[in-house]
């Protein structure tokens, strides 16, 4: 390593770790080959899984403060970072609430989430004359599709460049974009409580547009919680935001177009992609949906076909009808086992295994505020009921993009433009009478998505019976066998199952195990899946430090 340039470094369990300016702690540690970040109550190692602040498995202790998410925390020179133990000591030194710095906002339109949908909504509302604030959880807004680089330098490709343009457009429109904001409370009458750089942020907007996107559905097989196993989106964030490869040798599996795209991106970034395993049959076996997709959006269909060709050119094997069955540690690497529909089996040794088995909407805020939902059996998740202008059943609350049910980035942007104008018009800024063109475009995007997902396996497998000791709840370390025992005791409701087994009681608040538990209960009781099949929504939306709650209370006292 060059001695001449003083490198930025932090220590991890005493080892010196270099990082590049802008990298997250998780990215720097991944680059240094450190994948095990936290140890569970049962003594298991865990690492970065979701890469987006949801799973809470990347926790580390930073300068003595426990339970910081390595994926959401920027690396900084001189930090002392350690493996997160399961039972950290209570320590007054790190417990004081931040002094001052609290902010109180009351914009005409509050946009929650700065992805394709949120940014488009902000631009539309701002241009109509409304005051707009966008809150985004990440260090750099842009969302999952446009994933922006947190490092200096030119955009990676057109997708990232388009995102940068959209972000600049949003700023130019006059919207205030606040990044690195963790919203943890949403209450009736549109009150949002959040934390920003440790200080309280309180928002009482006139209208709100929720654009919180989706997170990824994992495939629960033995070993899916091992460090090095991560969602495909997490691997993509590592690469697109931090120019960090999840590992030198990787495999990607699950179902859906993201897996192929990320396989290609990682290969272009220099990774050796051992395998892309897709559960669905190849598209040519489903000519009708393929044709429908092509008709609805020729450009996107062409782009998808192009990706397949490039995958082949790079010599990356794409196996259809193939699913992951098991992951096991092998030295410092992972041994991943796959099974194909024809009964053949395949194994490969990789540094990182990426999985995406579909998406779950991040609808916590919408559900907390009581927006009406219905179950979409094709995608196996809830969709938020909205009218033609994308307002939910709660007056003044709009929902756009994947948080209302999977739809993809182009549809999200389109919905954002409609809702942004409608929310502004609601307050007397401009008129939203000529939305027909947007609505027509939206119908086309939706037709494309519907056709697209017919070529993949968008429905979570109902009949899978994983090994009994496979974990279903990462946080509380609950196995399928325990879940089944709980079901036998009282199959009544997923809430009963939660109290009986502790499934979903951990830090991720049931985001991964919840949908699975809900489906198991529905199957056992013969009930239809619906909004109430899921765990009841509760604050905090994400775990929030007690000192941040204190700060919020002080800030509210000052306002009221």
């Amino acid at each position, binding site marked *: 390593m060059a001695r001449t340039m003083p490198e930025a470094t932090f220590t991890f369990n005493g080892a010196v770790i270099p990082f590049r300016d802008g990298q997250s702690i998780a990215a720097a540690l991944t680059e240094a080959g450190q994948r095990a970040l936290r140890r569970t109550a049962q003594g298991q190692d865990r690492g970065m899984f979701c890469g987006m602040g949801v799973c809470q498995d990347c926790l580390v202790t930073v300068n003595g403060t426990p339970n910081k998410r390595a994926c959401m925390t920027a690396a900084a020179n001189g930090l002392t970072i350690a493996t997160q133990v399961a039972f950290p000591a*209570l320590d007054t030194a790190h417990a004081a609430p931040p002094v001052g710095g609290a902010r109180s906002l009351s914009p005409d339109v509050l946009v929650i989430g700065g992805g394709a949908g949120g940014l488009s909504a902000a631009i539309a509302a701002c241009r109509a004359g409304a005051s707009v604030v966008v809150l985004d959880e990440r260090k750099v807004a842009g969302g999952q599709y446009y994933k922006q680089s947190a490092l200096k330098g030119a955009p990676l490709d057109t997708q990232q460049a388009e995102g940068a343009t959209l972000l600049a457009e949003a700023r130019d429109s006059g919207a205030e974009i606040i990044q690195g904001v963790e919203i943890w409370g949403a209450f009736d009458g549109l009150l949002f409580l959040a934390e920003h750089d440790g200080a309280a942020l309180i928002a009482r907007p006139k209208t709100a547009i929720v654009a919180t996107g989706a997170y990824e559905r994992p495939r629960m097989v033995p070993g899916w919680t091992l460090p090095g196993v991560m969602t495909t989106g997490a691997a993509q964030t590592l690469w697109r935001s931090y120019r960090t490869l999840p590992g030198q040798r990787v495999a990607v599996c699950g179902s859906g177009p993201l897996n192929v795209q990320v396989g290609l991106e990682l290969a272009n970034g220099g990774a050796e992609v051992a395998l892309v395993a897709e559960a669905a049959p190849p598209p040519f076996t489903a000519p009708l949906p393929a044709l429908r997709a092509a008709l609805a959006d020729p450009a996107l269909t062409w782009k998808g076909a192009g990706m397949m060709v490039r995958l082949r050119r790079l010599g990356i094997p794409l196996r259809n009808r193939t699913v992951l069955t098991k992951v096991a540690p092998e030295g410092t690497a992972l041994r991943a086992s796959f099974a194909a529909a024809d009964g053949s089996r395949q194994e490969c040794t990789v540094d990182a295994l990426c999985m995406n088995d579909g998406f779950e909407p991040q609808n916590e805020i919408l559900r907390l505020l009581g927006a009406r939902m219905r179950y979409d059996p094709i995608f196996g998740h809830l969709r938020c009921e909205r009218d033609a202008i994308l307002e939910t059943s709660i007056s003044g609350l709009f929902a756009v993009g994947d948080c209302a049910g999977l739809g993809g980035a182009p549809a999200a942007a389109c919905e954002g433009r409609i809702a942004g104008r409608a929310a502004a018009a609601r307050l007397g800024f401009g008129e939203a009478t000529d939305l027909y063109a947007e609505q027509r475009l939206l119908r086309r995007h939706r037709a494309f998505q519907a056709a697209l997902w017919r070529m993949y396996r968008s429905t979570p497998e109902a009949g899978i019976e994983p090994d009994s000791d496979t974990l279903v709840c990462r946080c509380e370390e609950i196995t399928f066998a325990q879940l089944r025992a709980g079901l036998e005791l009282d199959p009544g409701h997923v809430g009963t199952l939660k109290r009986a087994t502790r499934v979903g009681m951990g830090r991720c608040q049931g985001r991964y195990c919840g949908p699975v538990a809900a489906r198991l209960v529905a199957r056992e009781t013969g009930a239809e899946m619906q909004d109430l099949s899921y765990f009841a929504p509760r604050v905090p939306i994400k775990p929030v430090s007690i000192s941040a*709650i204190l700060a919020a209370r002080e800030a509210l006292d000052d306002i009221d």
Partner: protein
Amino acid sequence: MTSTDVLIVGGGIVGLVAAIELAGAGMKVKIIDAGINAGSTANAGSLHVQMQSRFMRLYPGQVPNIEASLPLYRAAVEAWVDLDAAHGPFDLVRKGGLMLAESPDQMAFLEQKVQRETARGVRAELLDRAAVDRFAPWLGQQIIGAELCLDEGKLNPLVANVRLRAAADRLGVRIERDWISAITVEGGIVEARGRNFTHHGDRVLIAAAWGAGPLARSHGLDIPTRAEPLHMNITEPCQTRIQHLIQHAERSLTLKQLGTGQIVIGGGWPAEDRGERTVPGVLYGSLLGNVALAAQLIPSIGGIRIIRTWAGMNTTADGASIIGPLPRAGRIVMAVPGDAGYTLGPLVARMAAAEMLGRDPPRDTAPFSPGRFAAQSP
């Protein structure tokens, strides 16, 4: 004669333990439960004995009843210790409860309270800060002393509920979901009319907490059971340091650390009432106020995170338990524990079950007879 000896309406802690007692004595028992808003599934697992400052402040009229019930609370914790030995472990710890004082006024209040409680046989004493520091040095600087009640403790209600439910299953207790709207007695048979079915039994035990009052009304009793939605918070796990049940001499707080390492913060902050048949909602004022108070008293918890809040339905009546047959319908027996009902639950259940089995109850039930609510005849 029907095929069910005893129908139990309500499957909370009282209903479950009563079922275990009755089925253990050879009776055929069926529990009918609405499956919503059981205090037993939402409570904080504090084993209360000393008089809670919250109740004394909120319901001064109930203080005489609460005070008279002190020996019952002591016996109730003993019943939990028994139950833990038979069906546990429930994560039960009995190191005592601390009620904190921040001002001389509060100390004076506690001093009087200690006198009243020791007079009723409660093991309570007043400690100055130096004495408190011997086992709770992590308390905030402003704490000047505390009442220590050695009879108090804590347990994990989720663990207790699951184990007791399994014990009831093993004894052949059937549990059905239904909402009972009326109970009538005819020709020596009890009929409980449910939303789904009509259930029959030789006798019925009403262990329906907030739902108990309405069921007794047509039998000439005006039992003022009231649903009280309450707020709770829980943190992520941390190193175990807090052995005692923590309360405050003036403000609403209960705090304890479970065996999981998580800290449970509650103490009677209100939740949003959405009616008895809907789960209550979380109010931000309660979340902020409750957690802030905890952080003031134990500053070192500021660095850990709250991972969940919930709202549950508590039941209050007149400060004393309601146990025994209805004066005008002896086949209908009440078992409503009253304040700190999870603590009282097993003992109240055993007292009611003993009455039904014609055995000597573990304590005299006469002071708790539902007869005290006989409606004034028009």
